[in-house]
């Protein structure tokens, strides 16, 4: 692998205690992701996809293993420092949107910048620009309950993008949407990926998963296939797979 990888994960292990049985959620994960890559992470429920996503998003810590984000080692960082790093580099898109119901679309999008202490005028401008870009220019002042599923997810994406993160982590972004809205959301995510953002999509949807250039499959806490790795390995060994 090259040193230019923005995410370097080595030897990740995580065990949860479920009842009396220890559950090995992640087993010896190795994963390097380069800037601008488009990855899908698939696998059955309980295979560790979400756990891995949360680790990459710095919401969770592995029991053992190293994680370098943009060249910075994250294992020894305090919670405060991890929050800073998350704010700076990472955008989350959730299956159930997680918008705050009392806040308007605009205020929801502003939220990450508000937490970062950006001045109201500046962040308001930026949020409304971004929402207009996503086709929600007429819905700025509406509350989540007044918006459709596709619109809600677009607000969610705008919120993830407003801090200009390097990585977009999407956990089943189309899971709660109908076919057409799902397609719209996928298009938006891929458009931003083409503009340079690293996109990691966790999904059950095979059609969505197949769209990614690099496809990872997980089973019982292990990455059982990685098209990127196979291609590289194949190149390395001069084998045409």
């Amino acid at each position, binding site marked *: 692998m090259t040193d230019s990888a923005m995410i370097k994960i080595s030897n990740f292990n995580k065990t949860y205690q479920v009842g009396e049985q220890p559950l090995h959620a992640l087993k010896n994960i190795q994963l390097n992701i380069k800037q601008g890559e488009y990855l899908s992470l698939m696998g059955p429920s309980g295979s560790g996809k979400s756990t891995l996503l949360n680790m990459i998003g710095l919401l969770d810590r592995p029991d053992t293993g190293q994680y370098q984000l943009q060249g910075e080692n994250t294992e020894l960082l305090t919670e405060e420092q991890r929050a800073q790093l998350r704010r700076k580099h990472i955008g989350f898109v959730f299956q159930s949107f997680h918008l705050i119901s009392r806040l308007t679309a605009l205020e929801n999008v502003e939220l990450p910048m*508000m937490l970062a202490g950006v001045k109201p005028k500046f962040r308001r401008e930026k949020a409304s620009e971004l929402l207009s870009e996503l086709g929600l220019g007429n819905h700025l002042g509406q509350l989540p309950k007044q918006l459709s599923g596709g619109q809600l997810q677009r607000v969610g994406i705008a919120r993830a993008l407003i801090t200009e993160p390097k990585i977009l982590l999407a956990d089943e972004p189309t899971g709660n949407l109908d076919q057409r809205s799902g397609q719209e959301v996928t298009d938006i995510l891929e458009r931003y990926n083409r503009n340079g953002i690293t996109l990691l999509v966790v999904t059950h949807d095979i059609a969505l998963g197949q769209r990614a250039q690099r496809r990872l499959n997980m089973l019982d806490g292990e990455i059982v296939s990685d098209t990127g790795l196979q291609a590289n390995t194949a190149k390395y060994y001069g084998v045409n797979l």
Partner: protein
Amino acid sequence: MNLADHWLFSYQALARHRLRSAMILLAIAMGVSSVLLLTSIGEGARLFIEQEFSGLGSKMLIVLPGKKETTGSAPPIYGTTPRDLTIEDAHALKTIHSISHVAPIIAGTATVSNQSLSRDIIILGTNIDMFTIRNLTLKQGSMLPKNSESRATQVCIIGAKLAKELFKNNSPLGQWLRIGEYKYRVIGLLEQRGESLGLDLRDMAIIPVRSAQILFDSPALFRILLQLKQSEYETSTIVQVNKVISQRHEGKADITIISQDAMLSAFNKIIVAVTASIGAIAAISLFVAGILIMNVSYISVSQRREEIGLLKSLGASAKEVRQIFVISSLVITSFGTLAGLVFSYSIVFIIHANFPNIPLAIPWWSTLSAIFMSFIIALLFSWLPANKAATVDPILALRG
């Protein structure tokens, strides 16, 4: 997150649960109001007394028989007396130049009766100077005779209530009253002035001091009131009074002299202490409001778990989440405190406007301490729930 954003964010969250926020607001407002209104009664009493004293003029000294040797304590109302103070002692004090009026006083209770009606009341034996010193005026009739100190004339001046009780609607002037075993002719009626320094002048009879000596069969004076020509003479006069009395009492100045200031400050100290303790009791309601804040904050934390998880995933640290919840309590507390202040001050203002006789005043120190306390309580009681919020696991919270 900057402070303005914090306030806005909290405000939006509070506005979401209108009824719940209104209840906390009410609890805090009630706590603040109870502190302010209860202390305002005490403060009102203090101002009332201060006003009463200033009505007397600041030129009065009170001479009591007996001397307490321990200094620094509150002035005694009754001294223990080895040697009586007499009318002659009072007379001797008139030789002091800086004194303008001297009123010897004998006080005691006796049964006063007019035919079948009778009452047990306080009888004051004194002279004309008493009226000047205490600013007493007559509504009808004439003053005590000028020779009250030498002759036991059988006359009396009575208060309005006593007159009404014993003579009903008839004029008491010129009528005979029986006090104890003697008969007195009513020559004057006091102007109704209400209570003055604990003496209800409406229900009292004033007779010449010499007559009182006979009535109570004792030469001992209850006290002597002195009025100075100018209040600056106070210190020098006290020295002189002691000198005159010690000459007359075999070298011993066995008297206690209380100045107006000493009395006023003693009263002040007592009332401020009482007011403060009333305020402290009222502060219990603020404490209860604090417990309500804690309860509601806990509910709020569990209801907003998903939001907390979201905020963390958006880059909020545990510290920032804690701040959000603490500031949310502070926001509601500010509104509650403000409501309490507005309410209490309005009540006092309205009472003042409609019933100027009722002395009410909110002391500045209780206003400050009520504000201070409500914020301290808000901080204290929101700390634990806020800590709980800070430790919410974002992954679990977002899973829903």
